[in-house]
């Protein structure tokens, strides 16, 4: 390859990273969840390098956005670090599992798990942000022992919000899985972290999303170093994605505050659903040892588009019905 086409290929990866960062930020799923499918399905990059580049780029986006959140004191650093005990342990187990999977040659499993995690993550992400503050729950023993109290100034509600978390142990269990998925798939697994803090610990949505963003960097750093020595990080590729994803996420965070039309987010959700279904299809094709390019990939695209439209339609109707009942 001559330098000009190498430069072109490099720029195409930067653009892929940019789109992933933008979509990840606008949907709240994080750059990595979009980056891995885009790199593998559209640019034909081996999943081993895609996950490596994604995980290390995730640290950049987490640190970039968390620096803003921590300054405004919305993210609860104390609660976040307490939960990192579980996510970092999970990340170690997850990355070692990935190494074992690669050694046994069942790479197709990673595609399928990735697709499933992406699709499942969509449900809480779509349901998110409907309630700003959680229903009040009585503090339990973990609230007192682990000092799970906090407060922040909510700009939209225009008041200081005092809150407390409950069920620390349940949060830790969910966080272990979040860390495991992060290490296994090379993503930040923000959706699972939000589930841990929102559903398990009953924290306000703003505290949950910002603290989870802060945590993603620490979890991803744990997995990244293991990936580095396992040889899963291709430096040139990771350089392109780190720059692209960060730029995309930055733009996304600027646009996000301006998007008032909620319906436009459904288009982004559809793109993610499509990527999820196509990852599962891609995994199934690999399991059968069929060629991953040509006619089969076109059939896969068509099937994935169809299934993702049906899935999203069902989800959209469910959300609308719940809204009507509320």
């Amino acid at each position: 390859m001559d330098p000009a086409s190498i430069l072109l290929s490099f720029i195409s990866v930067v653009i892929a990273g940019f789109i992933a960062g933008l979509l990840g930020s606008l949907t709240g799923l994080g750059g990595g969840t979009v980056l891995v499918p885009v790199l593998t399905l559209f640019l034909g990059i081996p999943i081993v390098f895609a996950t490596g580049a994604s995980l290390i780029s995730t640290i950049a986006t987490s640190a970039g956005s968390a620096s803003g959140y921590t300054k405004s004191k919305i993210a609860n650093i104390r609660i976040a670090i307490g939960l990192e005990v579980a996510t970092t342990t999970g990340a170690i187990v997850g990355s070692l599992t990935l190494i074992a999977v690669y050694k046994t040659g069942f790479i197709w499993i990673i595609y399928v798990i990735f697709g499933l995690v992406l699709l499942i993550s969509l449900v809480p992400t779509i349901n998110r942000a409907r309630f700003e503050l959680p229903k009040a729950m009585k503090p339990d023993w973990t609230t007192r022992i682990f000092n799970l109290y906090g407060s922040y100034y909510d700009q939209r509600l225009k008041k200081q919000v005092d809150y407390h978390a409950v069920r620390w142990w349940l949060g830790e269990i969910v966080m272990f899985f979040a860390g495991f998925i992060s290490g296994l798939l090379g993503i930040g697994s923000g959706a699972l972290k939000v589930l841990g803090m929102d559903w398990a610990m009953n924290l306000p949505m703003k505290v949950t999303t910002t603290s989870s963003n802060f945590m993603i960097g620490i979890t991803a750093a744990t997995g990244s170093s293991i990936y580095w020595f396992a040889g899963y990080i291709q430096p040139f590729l990771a350089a392109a994605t780190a720059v692209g994803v960060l730029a995309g996420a930055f733009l996304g965070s600027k646009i996000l505050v301006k998007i008032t039309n909620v319906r436009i987010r459904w288009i982004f959700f559809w793109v993610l659903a499509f990527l999820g279904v196509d990852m599962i299809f891609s995994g199934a094709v690999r399991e059968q040892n069929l060629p991953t390019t040509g006619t089969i990939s076109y059939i896969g695209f068509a099937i994935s588009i169809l299934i993702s439209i049906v899935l999203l339609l069902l989800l959209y109707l469910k959300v609308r019905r719940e809204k009507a009942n509320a």
Partner: protein
Amino acid sequence: MPKFDQNAITSMILSSGVILSLSLIIIGVALVFIRGGGDGVPLSEIANYHNPGDTITSVSLLPANFIGGLIAGDGLYYISVGLWVLIFTPVTVLIDALVTFGHERNKLYTLLDAIVLFNLLLAIFVIPRFIG
């Protein structure tokens, strides 16, 4: 007692980590293109990320060679150090928080922070010896 804003310090560490890392990465990419390769590997092989068996990966870029690579103006090492700055940014945040928790005599959270730090350092320094 001096009053310092923990959140502001964390925020500063995070943003400076990202800026430093990205600068090193961009310089590295430029150097790889200008010099037509890095670490004795030609550009075409470095850019061959479609074929895992026929390209350079992180496993051959040893941290022991990082400083030498930087001094030699080797683009691949600038990229590598940039990526490692990213990995170490959260480590710095954790060390800073450990000092703060210790300063506040918050024994429980000093312990929890130490466990997280232990996990991270385990992943960086110990586990790599057993893989690969």
